[in-house]
């Protein structure tokens, strides 16, 4: 796997992780 592909996978995984954490925290705060 090329370095560029690894960075792409890392970026999208990290974004998904951060976004889901934000939604999870907000959901727990509002419910």
């Amino acid at each position: 796997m090329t370095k560029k592909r690894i960075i792409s996978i890392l970026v999208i995984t990290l974004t998904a992780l951060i976004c889901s954490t934000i939604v999870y925290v907000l959901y727990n705060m509002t419910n």
Partner: protein
Amino acid sequence: MKTIKNGIFNENPTFILMLGLCPTLAVTTTFEGAYIMGLCVLIVLLITNFIVSIIKNIVPDNVRTPVYILLITTSVTALELILKKYVPALHETLGIYLPLIAVNCIVLGRALSVASVSSVKKSVLDAIGIGLGFALSLMLIGLVREVLGSNMITVMDGISSFTGYRAVYQVLPNTKILPITVFREPAGAFLTLGLLLAFFNFLKDRRSDVK
């Protein structure tokens, strides 16, 4: 200021770019629904354009679209959860069209074409311009449809439990012409949009003829 003016007039999302027509046609039965929807799109646009312009150098080109979609859906979900908790009346007024902002092509379109290649300041100004342009065009369609279709102007009704007072006005009290009920129906939305588009194109043509 020029960027904001450009978003409202030269690149108006509804009348020039013809983007985001689903909520434009669906929620404009009342003036209230129209401006609330416009406000929500403005908030989502501001958040996503701001974040996208900050992270634009970190995100590789081949995963730009999925990353931006994730950001948009997160901001829409956050907005929905906050509205549901603190302003439930507003949440009920918009219904299914609130989560549908996530698939509104204006938001992804501006993130990809403007925010991912511009500075933070320009992206935020563009979001304000496009958001205001969208909100104003929705308000115009909502106003025309409600006046013609119901002979009323609803400024605050669904959200009256939040604001504390109700503001619903009758336009012409003693008339037999209004209401023209077709304007309340989905067909009325297409009719209003078509007529307003024709009117704006007529004005544009006349201005270019004068020049």
